[in-house]
Protein backbone atom coordinates (compact mmCIF):
# COMPACT_ATOMS: atom_id res chain seq x y z
CA UNK A 1 0.00 0.00 0.00
CA UNK A 2 1.14 3.58 0.41
CA UNK A 3 4.91 3.61 0.34
CA UNK A 4 5.29 0.36 2.31
CA UNK A 5 7.40 -2.25 0.55
CA UNK A 6 5.27 -4.73 -1.33
CA UNK A 7 5.24 -8.28 -0.02
CA UNK A 8 3.68 -9.42 -3.25
CA UNK A 9 3.66 -7.77 -6.62
CA UNK A 10 2.17 -9.34 -9.72
CA UNK A 11 2.04 -8.05 -13.28
CA UNK A 12 -0.21 -9.65 -15.84
CA UNK A 13 0.04 -12.98 -14.09
CA UNK A 14 -1.70 -15.58 -16.23
CA UNK A 15 -2.14 -19.33 -16.19
CA UNK A 16 -3.75 -21.33 -18.92
CA UNK A 17 -4.54 -25.03 -18.72
CA UNK A 18 -5.10 -26.06 -22.30
CA UNK A 19 -7.98 -23.91 -23.52
CA UNK A 20 -9.01 -22.81 -20.05
CA UNK A 21 -7.62 -19.58 -18.68
CA UNK A 22 -7.65 -20.11 -14.93
CA UNK A 23 -5.91 -16.87 -14.04
CA UNK A 24 -6.22 -14.04 -16.51
CA UNK A 25 -3.70 -11.23 -16.25
CA UNK A 26 -3.80 -10.31 -12.58
CA UNK A 27 -2.02 -7.12 -11.49
CA UNK A 28 -1.87 -6.85 -7.76
CA UNK A 29 0.27 -5.33 -5.06
CA UNK A 30 0.01 -6.49 -1.46
CA UNK A 31 1.82 -4.57 1.24
CA UNK A 32 4.07 -5.90 3.96
CA UNK A 33 2.00 -6.88 7.00
CA UNK A 34 -1.30 -6.65 5.20
CA UNK A 35 -4.11 -9.17 5.53
CA UNK A 36 -5.52 -9.61 2.08
CA UNK A 37 -8.47 -11.73 1.02
CA UNK A 38 -9.21 -13.16 -2.38
CA UNK A 39 -12.90 -13.68 -2.52
CA UNK A 40 -14.65 -15.65 -5.19
CA UNK A 41 -16.63 -18.77 -5.98
CA UNK A 42 -15.07 -22.16 -6.55
CA UNK A 43 -13.22 -22.31 -9.84
CA UNK A 44 -12.59 -18.55 -9.91
CA UNK A 45 -8.84 -19.14 -10.08
CA UNK A 46 -7.94 -18.35 -6.47
CA UNK A 47 -6.01 -21.56 -5.82
CA UNK A 48 -4.16 -21.41 -9.13
CA UNK A 49 -3.17 -17.83 -8.39
CA UNK A 50 -1.80 -18.79 -4.99
CA UNK A 51 -0.09 -21.88 -6.39
CA UNK A 52 1.83 -19.69 -8.80
CA UNK A 53 2.91 -17.35 -6.00
CA UNK A 54 4.11 -20.38 -4.03
CA UNK A 55 6.14 -21.65 -7.02
CA UNK A 56 3.99 -24.78 -7.26
CA UNK A 57 2.69 -23.91 -10.70
CA UNK A 58 4.57 -22.03 -13.39
CA UNK A 59 2.75 -19.06 -14.92
CA UNK A 60 1.93 -19.13 -18.62
CA UNK A 61 2.77 -15.45 -18.86
CA UNK A 62 3.27 -12.43 -16.66
CA UNK A 63 5.52 -12.09 -13.65
CA UNK A 64 5.30 -11.89 -9.91
CA UNK A 65 7.63 -11.10 -7.05
CA UNK A 66 7.10 -12.52 -3.59
CA UNK A 67 9.14 -10.96 -0.78
CA UNK A 68 11.11 -9.26 -3.53
CA UNK A 69 12.00 -12.46 -5.36
CA UNK A 70 10.89 -13.57 -8.78
CA UNK A 71 8.63 -16.62 -8.59
CA UNK A 72 10.13 -18.26 -11.68
CA UNK A 73 13.85 -17.55 -11.47
CA UNK A 74 14.20 -17.38 -7.67
CA UNK A 75 11.85 -20.11 -6.51
CA UNK A 76 14.00 -21.17 -3.59
CA UNK A 77 14.28 -17.62 -2.22
CA UNK A 78 10.51 -17.25 -2.51
CA UNK A 79 9.96 -20.50 -0.64
CA UNK A 80 12.26 -19.36 2.16
CA UNK A 81 9.82 -16.58 2.97
CA UNK A 82 6.47 -18.26 2.76
CA UNK A 83 4.21 -20.68 4.51
CA UNK A 84 1.06 -22.17 3.08
CA UNK A 85 -2.00 -23.89 4.40
CA UNK A 86 -3.47 -25.87 1.57
CA UNK A 87 -7.08 -26.27 0.73
CA UNK A 88 -6.78 -30.04 0.53
CA UNK A 89 -5.07 -31.42 3.58
CA UNK A 90 -1.49 -32.29 2.72
CA UNK A 91 -0.43 -33.58 6.09
CA UNK A 92 1.18 -36.97 5.95
CA UNK A 93 -1.36 -39.68 6.74
CA UNK A 94 1.20 -42.26 7.70
CA UNK A 95 2.91 -40.11 10.30
CA UNK A 96 1.65 -38.83 13.62
CA UNK A 97 0.74 -35.20 14.18
CA UNK A 98 3.95 -34.57 16.10
CA UNK A 99 6.07 -36.22 13.44
CA UNK A 100 4.45 -34.07 10.77
CA UNK A 101 5.36 -30.94 12.67
CA UNK A 102 8.84 -32.20 13.43
CA UNK A 103 9.70 -33.03 9.82
CA UNK A 104 8.20 -29.77 8.64
CA UNK A 105 10.31 -27.81 11.13
CA UNK A 106 13.42 -29.57 9.92
CA UNK A 107 12.57 -28.91 6.30
CA UNK A 108 12.11 -25.25 7.07
CA UNK A 109 15.30 -24.97 9.06
CA UNK A 110 13.78 -24.19 12.44
CA UNK A 111 16.71 -24.22 14.92
CA UNK A 112 16.95 -27.64 16.47
CA UNK A 113 16.60 -26.70 20.11
CA UNK A 114 13.47 -24.67 19.39
CA UNK A 115 11.61 -27.41 17.54
CA UNK A 116 10.31 -29.31 20.57
CA UNK A 117 8.93 -26.23 22.28
CA UNK A 118 7.27 -24.91 19.17
CA UNK A 119 5.62 -28.24 18.42
CA UNK A 120 4.03 -28.39 21.88
CA UNK A 121 2.92 -24.80 21.66
CA UNK A 122 1.36 -25.22 18.22
CA UNK A 123 -0.36 -28.48 19.16
CA UNK A 124 -1.83 -26.75 22.20
CA UNK A 125 -2.92 -23.78 20.11
CA UNK A 126 -4.87 -25.95 17.69
CA UNK A 127 -6.11 -28.25 20.46
CA UNK A 128 -4.32 -31.40 19.33
CA UNK A 129 -1.95 -31.99 22.25
CA UNK A 130 -3.75 -35.16 23.33
CA UNK A 131 -3.75 -36.67 19.85
CA UNK A 132 -0.28 -35.59 18.84
CA UNK A 133 1.14 -39.10 18.84
CA UNK A 134 -1.68 -40.70 16.88
CA UNK A 135 -1.36 -41.29 13.17
CA UNK A 136 -2.98 -38.58 11.08
CA UNK A 137 -4.88 -41.39 9.35
CA UNK A 138 -7.08 -41.59 12.42
CA UNK A 139 -7.86 -37.85 12.50
CA UNK A 140 -11.16 -36.30 11.50
CA UNK A 141 -11.27 -33.76 8.68
CA UNK A 142 -11.35 -30.86 11.10
CA UNK A 143 -8.36 -32.19 13.04
CA UNK A 144 -6.32 -32.57 9.86
CA UNK A 145 -7.07 -29.03 8.93
CA UNK A 146 -6.04 -27.79 12.35
CA UNK A 147 -2.82 -29.76 12.12
CA UNK A 148 -2.24 -28.31 8.67
CA UNK A 149 -2.66 -24.82 10.07
CA UNK A 150 -0.28 -25.56 12.93
CA UNK A 151 2.22 -26.73 10.36
CA UNK A 152 1.84 -23.63 8.23
CA UNK A 153 2.50 -21.40 11.23
CA UNK A 154 5.22 -23.31 13.05
CA UNK A 155 8.15 -21.89 11.09
CA UNK A 156 6.82 -18.34 11.46
CA UNK A 157 6.88 -17.37 7.80
CA UNK A 158 7.02 -13.76 6.68
CA UNK A 159 4.21 -14.33 4.23
CA UNK A 160 1.48 -16.82 4.91
CA UNK A 161 -0.93 -18.16 2.32
CA UNK A 162 -4.16 -19.64 3.55
CA UNK A 163 -6.16 -21.38 0.87
CA UNK A 164 -9.71 -21.71 2.17
CA UNK A 165 -8.44 -22.16 5.72
CA UNK A 166 -11.82 -22.79 7.27
CA UNK A 167 -13.52 -24.79 4.53
CA UNK A 168 -15.58 -27.52 6.12
CA UNK A 169 -14.78 -26.51 9.69
CA UNK A 170 -17.37 -26.28 12.40
CA UNK A 171 -18.09 -22.75 13.69
CA UNK A 172 -15.97 -23.16 16.83
CA UNK A 173 -12.91 -24.30 14.89
CA UNK A 174 -13.47 -21.51 12.41
CA UNK A 175 -13.42 -18.95 15.18
CA UNK A 176 -10.24 -20.52 16.52
CA UNK A 177 -8.56 -20.30 13.12
CA UNK A 178 -9.50 -16.66 12.81
CA UNK A 179 -7.99 -16.16 16.23
CA UNK A 180 -4.62 -17.60 15.13
CA UNK A 181 -4.62 -15.52 12.01
CA UNK A 182 -5.18 -12.32 13.95
CA UNK A 183 -2.55 -13.31 16.45
CA UNK A 184 0.05 -14.00 13.74
CA UNK A 185 -0.69 -10.68 12.19
CA UNK A 186 -0.37 -8.80 15.45
CA UNK A 187 2.53 -10.58 17.05
CA UNK A 188 4.79 -11.17 14.06
CA UNK A 189 3.52 -8.70 11.47
CA UNK A 190 3.02 -11.56 9.06
CA UNK A 191 1.59 -10.72 5.66
CA UNK A 192 -1.43 -12.94 5.17
CA UNK A 193 -3.13 -13.78 1.92
CA UNK A 194 -6.23 -15.85 2.27
CA UNK A 195 -8.68 -17.16 -0.25
CA UNK A 196 -12.18 -17.77 0.79
CA UNK A 197 -15.67 -18.02 -0.47
CA UNK A 198 -17.11 -17.16 2.90
CA UNK A 199 -18.07 -13.53 2.84
CA UNK A 200 -17.88 -12.98 6.53
CA UNK A 201 -14.40 -14.41 6.64
CA UNK A 202 -13.09 -11.85 4.20
CA UNK A 203 -15.06 -9.17 5.99
CA UNK A 204 -13.88 -9.85 9.48
CA UNK A 205 -10.25 -10.75 8.83
CA UNK A 206 -8.90 -8.74 5.98
CA UNK A 207 -7.88 -5.17 5.41
CA UNK A 208 -8.43 -5.40 1.69
CA UNK A 209 -10.50 -7.71 -0.44
CA UNK A 210 -10.12 -8.56 -4.09
CA UNK A 211 -13.19 -10.02 -5.69
CA UNK A 212 -12.04 -12.56 -8.21
CA UNK A 213 -14.25 -14.08 -10.85
CA UNK A 214 -13.27 -16.15 -13.87
CA UNK A 215 -9.60 -15.49 -13.33
CA UNK A 216 -9.85 -11.72 -13.11
CA UNK A 217 -10.00 -9.26 -10.28
CA UNK A 218 -13.30 -7.50 -10.74
CA UNK A 219 -13.15 -5.24 -7.71
CA UNK A 220 -10.59 -4.34 -5.09
CA UNK A 221 -10.79 -2.35 -1.89
CA UNK A 222 -11.34 -2.44 1.85
CA UNK A 223 -14.49 -4.29 2.88
CA UNK A 224 -16.09 -0.94 3.77
CA UNK A 225 -15.14 0.66 0.47
CA UNK A 226 -16.59 -2.22 -1.44
CA UNK A 227 -19.80 -2.00 0.52
CA UNK A 228 -19.97 1.73 -0.03
CA UNK A 229 -19.60 1.21 -3.73
CA UNK A 230 -22.75 -0.86 -3.66
CA UNK A 231 -24.56 2.09 -2.12
CA UNK A 232 -25.61 1.73 1.45
CA UNK A 233 -27.61 -0.34 3.82
CA UNK A 234 -31.15 -1.26 3.06
CA UNK A 235 -33.94 -0.18 5.35
CA UNK A 236 -37.43 -1.51 4.80
CA UNK A 237 -40.20 0.40 6.46
CA UNK A 238 -43.73 -0.86 6.67
CA UNK A 239 -46.41 1.57 7.63
CA UNK A 240 -48.38 4.59 6.60
CA UNK A 241 -45.61 6.51 4.92
CA UNK A 242 -44.56 7.76 1.49
CA UNK A 243 -41.19 8.38 -0.09
CA UNK A 244 -41.68 12.15 -0.02
CA UNK A 245 -41.16 12.17 3.76
CA UNK A 246 -37.48 11.52 3.25
CA UNK A 247 -36.79 14.08 0.58
CA UNK A 248 -34.03 16.42 1.66
CA UNK A 249 -32.24 13.93 3.89
CA UNK A 250 -28.74 13.57 2.46
CA UNK A 251 -28.12 10.12 3.93
CA UNK A 252 -31.13 8.66 2.16
CA UNK A 253 -29.88 7.79 -1.29
CA UNK A 254 -32.99 6.27 -2.65
CA UNK A 255 -36.56 5.66 -1.56
CA UNK A 256 -38.88 3.39 -3.51
CA UNK A 257 -42.18 1.77 -2.80
CA UNK A 258 -41.96 -1.97 -2.90
CA UNK A 259 -45.07 -4.08 -2.34
CA UNK A 260 -46.59 -2.33 0.59
CA UNK A 261 -43.42 -1.13 2.21
CA UNK A 262 -40.84 1.48 1.56
CA UNK A 263 -37.36 0.49 0.59
CA UNK A 264 -34.66 2.97 1.47
CA UNK A 265 -31.03 2.87 0.57
CA UNK A 266 -29.33 4.57 3.47
CA UNK A 267 -25.71 5.39 4.13
CA UNK A 268 -24.65 4.05 7.51
CA UNK A 269 -28.08 2.90 8.58
CA UNK A 270 -27.32 2.15 12.26
CA UNK A 271 -26.40 5.76 12.87
CA UNK A 272 -29.40 7.23 11.09
CA UNK A 273 -32.00 4.71 12.04
CA UNK A 274 -33.46 6.76 14.87
CA UNK A 275 -33.84 9.83 12.67
CA UNK A 276 -35.66 7.74 10.10
CA UNK A 277 -38.03 6.24 12.57
CA UNK A 278 -38.77 9.63 14.11
CA UNK A 279 -39.98 10.83 10.72
CA UNK A 280 -42.60 8.16 10.42
CA UNK A 281 -46.05 8.78 11.81
CA UNK A 282 -46.94 5.08 12.09
CA UNK A 283 -44.57 2.17 11.70
CA UNK A 284 -45.55 -1.45 11.78
CA UNK A 285 -42.21 -2.97 11.03
CA UNK A 286 -38.62 -1.94 10.38
CA UNK A 287 -36.01 -4.12 8.76
CA UNK A 288 -32.41 -3.11 8.47
CA UNK A 289 -29.99 -5.07 6.34
CA UNK A 290 -26.36 -4.13 6.33
CA UNK A 291 -24.68 -4.38 2.97
CA UNK A 292 -22.77 -7.59 2.86
CA UNK A 293 -19.97 -8.70 0.64
CA UNK A 294 -22.58 -10.97 -0.89
CA UNK A 295 -24.29 -7.87 -2.20
CA UNK A 296 -20.93 -6.61 -3.41
CA UNK A 297 -20.27 -9.82 -5.25
CA UNK A 298 -23.71 -9.77 -6.79
CA UNK A 299 -23.30 -6.20 -7.93
CA UNK A 300 -19.91 -6.61 -9.54
CA UNK A 301 -20.28 -10.03 -11.09
CA UNK A 302 -24.00 -10.04 -11.71
CA UNK A 303 -24.20 -13.41 -10.03
CA UNK A 304 -24.92 -14.72 -6.59
CA UNK A 305 -22.16 -16.39 -4.77
CA UNK A 306 -23.32 -19.87 -4.00
CA UNK A 307 -21.67 -22.14 -1.61
CA UNK A 308 -22.30 -25.82 -2.22
CA UNK A 309 -21.84 -26.86 1.34
CA UNK A 310 -24.03 -25.31 3.95
CA UNK A 311 -24.91 -22.11 2.18
CA UNK A 312 -22.38 -19.97 4.04
CA UNK A 313 -23.60 -18.06 7.02
CA UNK A 314 -25.07 -14.83 5.87
CA UNK A 315 -24.57 -11.75 7.92
CA UNK A 316 -28.13 -10.84 7.65
CA UNK A 317 -29.06 -8.50 10.35
CA UNK A 318 -32.64 -7.92 11.10
CA UNK A 319 -34.30 -5.59 13.50
CA UNK A 320 -37.99 -5.75 13.86
CA UNK A 321 -39.84 -3.09 15.69
CA UNK A 322 -43.40 -4.11 16.18
CA UNK A 323 -46.17 -1.57 16.11
CA UNK A 324 -44.07 1.40 16.90
CA UNK A 325 -46.41 4.36 17.31
CA UNK A 326 -45.40 7.86 17.87
Amino acid at each position, binding site marked *: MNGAPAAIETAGLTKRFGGLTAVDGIDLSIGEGEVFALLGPNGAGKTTFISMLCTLVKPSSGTARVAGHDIVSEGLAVRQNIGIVFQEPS*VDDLLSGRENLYLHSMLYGVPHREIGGRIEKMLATVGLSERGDDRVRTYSGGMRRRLEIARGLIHEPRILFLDEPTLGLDPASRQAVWGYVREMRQRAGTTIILTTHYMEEADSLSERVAIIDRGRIVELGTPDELKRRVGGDVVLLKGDIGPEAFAGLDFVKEAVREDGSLRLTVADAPRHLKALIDLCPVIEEVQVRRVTLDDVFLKFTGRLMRDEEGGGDSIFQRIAVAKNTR
Partner: protein
Amino acid sequence: MNALLADINAAYALFLREIKVYFREKERIISIMVSPLLFLFVVGRGLSGHSPVPGYNYQQFIFPGILCMVILFTSITYGLYIIWDKRLDFLKEVLVAPISRSTLFVGKALGGMVGGTMEAAILLLIGACIILPLGPAKIAGALVLAMLFSFLLVSIGLGIGARMNSMEGFGLVMSFLTWPMFFFGGALFDLTQAGRWLRLAAYLDPFTYCVDLMRWVLLGWSVLPAGMDLAAVLLSCAATAAWGIVSFGGLQQTR
Protein backbone atom coordinates in the same frame (compact mmCIF):
# COMPACT_ATOMS: atom_id res chain seq x y z
CA MET B 1 22.65 -21.94 9.91
CA ASN B 2 24.57 -22.10 6.68
CA ALA B 3 23.03 -23.30 3.47
CA LEU B 4 24.80 -26.63 3.25
CA LEU B 5 23.86 -27.60 6.77
CA ALA B 6 20.26 -26.63 6.07
CA ASP B 7 20.30 -28.83 2.98
CA ILE B 8 21.73 -31.78 4.88
CA ASN B 9 19.14 -31.29 7.59
CA ALA B 10 16.33 -31.17 5.05
CA ALA B 11 17.58 -34.23 3.18
CA TYR B 12 17.80 -36.04 6.51
CA ALA B 13 14.22 -35.06 7.33
CA LEU B 14 12.99 -36.44 4.00
CA PHE B 15 15.03 -39.60 4.49
CA LEU B 16 13.63 -40.03 7.98
CA ARG B 17 10.10 -39.71 6.66
CA GLU B 18 10.66 -42.42 4.07
CA ILE B 19 12.09 -44.81 6.65
CA LYS B 20 9.23 -44.26 9.08
CA VAL B 21 6.70 -44.78 6.33
CA TYR B 22 8.54 -47.83 5.02
CA PHE B 23 8.43 -49.66 8.33
CA ARG B 24 4.76 -48.84 8.80
CA GLU B 25 3.70 -50.31 5.48
CA LYS B 26 4.26 -53.94 6.31
CA GLU B 27 1.96 -55.21 3.56
CA ARG B 28 4.21 -53.62 0.99
CA ILE B 29 7.32 -55.29 2.41
CA ILE B 30 5.69 -58.69 2.14
CA SER B 31 3.88 -58.25 -1.19
CA ILE B 32 6.97 -57.16 -3.06
CA MET B 33 8.68 -60.45 -2.09
CA VAL B 34 6.09 -62.62 -3.83
CA SER B 35 7.31 -62.61 -7.42
CA PRO B 36 11.01 -63.04 -6.56
CA LEU B 37 10.15 -66.04 -4.41
CA LEU B 38 8.05 -67.49 -7.22
CA PHE B 39 10.98 -67.11 -9.57
CA LEU B 40 13.38 -68.65 -7.09
CA PHE B 41 11.28 -71.66 -6.26
CA VAL B 42 9.16 -72.25 -9.36
CA VAL B 43 11.57 -71.24 -12.12
CA GLY B 44 14.66 -72.06 -10.09
CA ARG B 45 13.54 -75.52 -9.01
CA GLY B 46 10.90 -76.40 -11.56
CA LEU B 47 12.68 -75.40 -14.73
CA SER B 48 15.86 -77.24 -13.74
CA GLY B 49 17.81 -75.02 -16.10
CA HIS B 50 21.49 -75.32 -16.74
CA SER B 51 23.95 -73.57 -14.46
CA PRO B 52 27.17 -72.38 -16.11
CA VAL B 53 28.84 -71.99 -12.73
CA PRO B 54 30.59 -75.15 -11.59
CA GLY B 55 29.54 -76.32 -8.15
CA TYR B 56 26.25 -74.40 -8.14
CA ASN B 57 22.85 -75.59 -9.33
CA TYR B 58 20.45 -73.50 -11.43
CA GLN B 59 18.52 -72.19 -8.43
CA GLN B 60 21.75 -71.05 -6.83
CA PHE B 61 22.87 -69.58 -10.15
CA ILE B 62 19.81 -67.34 -10.47
CA PHE B 63 19.79 -66.32 -6.81
CA PRO B 64 22.02 -63.21 -7.25
CA GLY B 65 19.88 -62.14 -10.19
CA ILE B 66 16.67 -62.58 -8.21
CA LEU B 67 18.23 -60.62 -5.38
CA CYS B 68 18.82 -57.80 -7.85
CA MET B 69 15.26 -58.24 -9.12
CA VAL B 70 13.89 -57.49 -5.65
CA ILE B 71 15.94 -54.32 -5.59
CA LEU B 72 14.84 -53.43 -9.12
CA PHE B 73 11.14 -53.81 -8.44
CA THR B 74 11.20 -52.19 -5.01
CA SER B 75 13.22 -49.25 -6.24
CA ILE B 76 11.33 -48.51 -9.45
CA THR B 77 7.99 -48.86 -7.67
CA TYR B 78 9.18 -46.57 -4.92
CA GLY B 79 10.39 -44.00 -7.43
CA LEU B 80 7.16 -44.07 -9.40
CA TYR B 81 5.23 -43.55 -6.19
CA ILE B 82 6.01 -39.90 -6.56
CA ILE B 83 3.27 -39.70 -9.21
CA TRP B 84 0.86 -40.79 -6.53
CA ASP B 85 2.35 -38.30 -4.08
CA LYS B 86 1.85 -35.52 -6.59
CA ARG B 87 -1.82 -36.31 -6.85
CA LEU B 88 -2.42 -36.90 -3.18
CA ASP B 89 -0.96 -33.53 -2.21
CA PHE B 90 1.63 -34.91 0.17
CA LEU B 91 4.31 -33.71 -2.17
CA LYS B 92 3.01 -30.16 -2.20
CA GLU B 93 4.17 -29.64 1.33
CA VAL B 94 7.67 -30.65 0.30
CA LEU B 95 7.57 -28.70 -2.95
CA VAL B 96 6.91 -25.42 -1.16
CA ALA B 97 9.59 -26.08 1.44
CA PRO B 98 12.67 -23.86 1.15
CA ILE B 99 14.86 -26.60 -0.18
CA SER B 100 16.31 -27.02 -3.63
CA ARG B 101 14.90 -29.67 -5.92
CA SER B 102 18.24 -31.48 -5.82
CA THR B 103 18.03 -31.75 -2.03
CA LEU B 104 14.55 -33.11 -2.43
CA PHE B 105 15.83 -35.63 -4.94
CA VAL B 106 18.70 -36.75 -2.74
CA GLY B 107 16.47 -37.12 0.33
CA LYS B 108 13.94 -39.16 -1.65
CA ALA B 109 16.62 -41.29 -3.28
CA LEU B 110 18.33 -42.03 0.04
CA GLY B 111 14.97 -42.94 1.56
CA GLY B 112 14.27 -45.29 -1.34
CA MET B 113 17.66 -46.86 -0.91
CA VAL B 114 16.67 -48.05 2.54
CA GLY B 115 13.62 -49.81 1.12
CA GLY B 116 15.56 -51.62 -1.59
CA THR B 117 18.32 -52.60 0.80
CA MET B 118 15.87 -53.88 3.39
CA GLU B 119 14.12 -56.11 0.86
CA ALA B 120 17.48 -57.40 -0.31
CA ALA B 121 18.45 -58.15 3.28
CA ILE B 122 15.29 -60.18 3.81
CA LEU B 123 15.88 -62.23 0.67
CA LEU B 124 19.54 -62.69 1.55
CA LEU B 125 18.47 -64.16 4.86
CA ILE B 126 16.05 -66.54 3.18
CA GLY B 127 18.72 -67.46 0.66
CA ALA B 128 21.41 -68.03 3.27
CA CYS B 129 19.09 -70.35 5.19
CA ILE B 130 17.78 -72.57 2.41
CA ILE B 131 19.43 -71.91 -0.94
CA LEU B 132 23.14 -71.43 -0.71
CA PRO B 133 25.66 -71.02 2.06
CA LEU B 134 26.65 -67.39 2.59
CA GLY B 135 29.28 -66.14 5.04
CA PRO B 136 29.17 -62.75 6.76
CA ALA B 137 31.64 -61.29 4.25
CA LYS B 138 29.45 -62.22 1.27
CA ILE B 139 26.34 -60.89 2.99
CA ALA B 140 28.05 -57.62 3.84
CA GLY B 141 29.33 -57.29 0.28
CA ALA B 142 25.86 -58.02 -1.12
CA LEU B 143 24.31 -55.39 1.15
CA VAL B 144 26.76 -52.72 0.04
CA LEU B 145 25.95 -53.54 -3.57
CA ALA B 146 22.25 -53.52 -2.75
CA MET B 147 22.56 -49.94 -1.52
CA LEU B 148 24.38 -48.89 -4.65
CA PHE B 149 21.91 -50.63 -6.98
CA SER B 150 18.96 -49.21 -5.06
CA PHE B 151 20.26 -45.71 -5.55
CA LEU B 152 20.71 -46.30 -9.27
CA LEU B 153 17.26 -47.80 -9.78
CA VAL B 154 15.42 -45.41 -7.46
CA SER B 155 16.91 -42.55 -9.46
CA ILE B 156 15.44 -44.01 -12.64
CA GLY B 157 12.05 -44.43 -11.00
CA LEU B 158 12.04 -40.93 -9.50
CA GLY B 159 13.18 -39.36 -12.76
CA ILE B 160 10.39 -41.02 -14.71
CA GLY B 161 7.84 -40.42 -11.95
CA ALA B 162 8.66 -36.72 -11.84
CA ARG B 163 7.89 -36.42 -15.54
CA MET B 164 4.71 -38.46 -15.55
CA ASN B 165 1.35 -37.16 -14.49
CA SER B 166 -0.97 -40.11 -14.44
CA MET B 167 -0.92 -43.32 -12.53
CA GLU B 168 -1.84 -45.17 -15.74
CA GLY B 169 1.75 -44.64 -16.78
CA PHE B 170 2.75 -46.83 -13.86
CA GLY B 171 1.73 -50.02 -15.67
CA LEU B 172 3.42 -48.88 -18.85
CA VAL B 173 6.71 -48.35 -17.09
CA MET B 174 6.45 -51.74 -15.44
CA SER B 175 5.72 -53.51 -18.75
CA PHE B 176 8.03 -51.56 -21.00
CA LEU B 177 10.91 -50.83 -18.68
CA THR B 178 11.07 -52.85 -15.48
CA TRP B 179 10.31 -56.31 -16.85
CA PRO B 180 12.54 -55.89 -19.95
CA MET B 181 15.34 -54.61 -17.76
CA PHE B 182 14.97 -57.69 -15.63
CA PHE B 183 14.78 -60.20 -18.51
CA PHE B 184 17.56 -58.68 -20.59
CA GLY B 185 19.71 -58.31 -17.49
CA GLY B 186 20.72 -61.96 -17.61
CA ALA B 187 19.32 -62.79 -14.19
CA LEU B 188 17.94 -66.10 -15.48
CA PHE B 189 20.46 -67.12 -18.14
CA ASP B 190 24.13 -67.20 -19.05
CA LEU B 191 24.98 -64.21 -21.22
CA THR B 192 27.90 -65.91 -22.90
CA GLN B 193 25.53 -68.49 -24.38
CA ALA B 194 23.00 -65.93 -25.57
CA GLY B 195 22.50 -64.83 -29.18
CA ARG B 196 24.06 -61.67 -30.55
CA TRP B 197 20.98 -59.44 -30.35
CA LEU B 198 20.11 -60.59 -26.89
CA ARG B 199 23.65 -59.90 -25.81
CA LEU B 200 23.55 -56.42 -27.34
CA ALA B 201 20.34 -55.64 -25.48
CA ALA B 202 21.90 -56.94 -22.30
CA TYR B 203 24.94 -54.73 -22.55
CA LEU B 204 22.73 -51.68 -23.04
CA ASP B 205 20.84 -52.53 -19.86
CA PRO B 206 22.44 -51.12 -16.70
CA PHE B 207 20.73 -53.88 -14.73
CA THR B 208 23.02 -56.45 -16.45
CA TYR B 209 26.04 -55.04 -14.68
CA CYS B 210 24.24 -55.13 -11.35
CA VAL B 211 23.42 -58.82 -11.79
CA ASP B 212 26.91 -59.66 -12.96
CA LEU B 213 28.53 -57.85 -10.06
CA MET B 214 26.21 -59.46 -7.53
CA ARG B 215 27.02 -62.89 -8.97
CA TRP B 216 30.69 -62.14 -8.66
CA VAL B 217 30.27 -61.31 -4.98
CA LEU B 218 28.02 -64.26 -4.10
CA LEU B 219 29.26 -67.01 -6.44
CA GLY B 220 32.70 -65.76 -7.39
CA TRP B 221 31.74 -65.96 -11.06
CA SER B 222 30.98 -63.19 -13.55
CA VAL B 223 30.77 -62.69 -17.31
CA LEU B 224 32.65 -59.39 -17.30
CA PRO B 225 35.53 -58.39 -15.05
CA ALA B 226 34.10 -57.17 -11.74
CA GLY B 227 35.93 -53.85 -12.04
CA MET B 228 34.24 -53.19 -15.34
CA ASP B 229 30.84 -54.04 -13.87
CA LEU B 230 31.46 -51.69 -10.98
CA ALA B 231 32.59 -48.89 -13.29
CA ALA B 232 29.45 -49.34 -15.40
CA VAL B 233 27.22 -49.27 -12.31
CA LEU B 234 28.89 -46.16 -10.88
CA LEU B 235 28.67 -44.40 -14.23
CA SER B 236 24.99 -45.28 -14.53
CA CYS B 237 24.44 -44.02 -10.98
CA ALA B 238 25.95 -40.65 -11.81
CA ALA B 239 24.02 -40.40 -15.07
CA THR B 240 20.62 -41.36 -13.62
CA ALA B 241 21.08 -39.15 -10.56
CA ALA B 242 21.92 -36.17 -12.79
CA TRP B 243 18.92 -36.94 -14.97
CA GLY B 244 16.71 -37.37 -11.92
CA ILE B 245 17.75 -34.01 -10.50
CA VAL B 246 17.00 -32.33 -13.83
CA SER B 247 13.58 -34.02 -13.87
CA PHE B 248 12.92 -32.79 -10.34
CA GLY B 249 13.80 -29.28 -11.41
CA GLY B 250 10.69 -29.24 -13.58
CA LEU B 251 8.51 -30.81 -10.94
CA GLN B 252 5.15 -29.12 -10.59
CA GLN B 253 2.03 -29.96 -8.80
CA THR B 254 -0.52 -31.76 -10.95
CA ARG B 255 -4.17 -31.11 -10.77
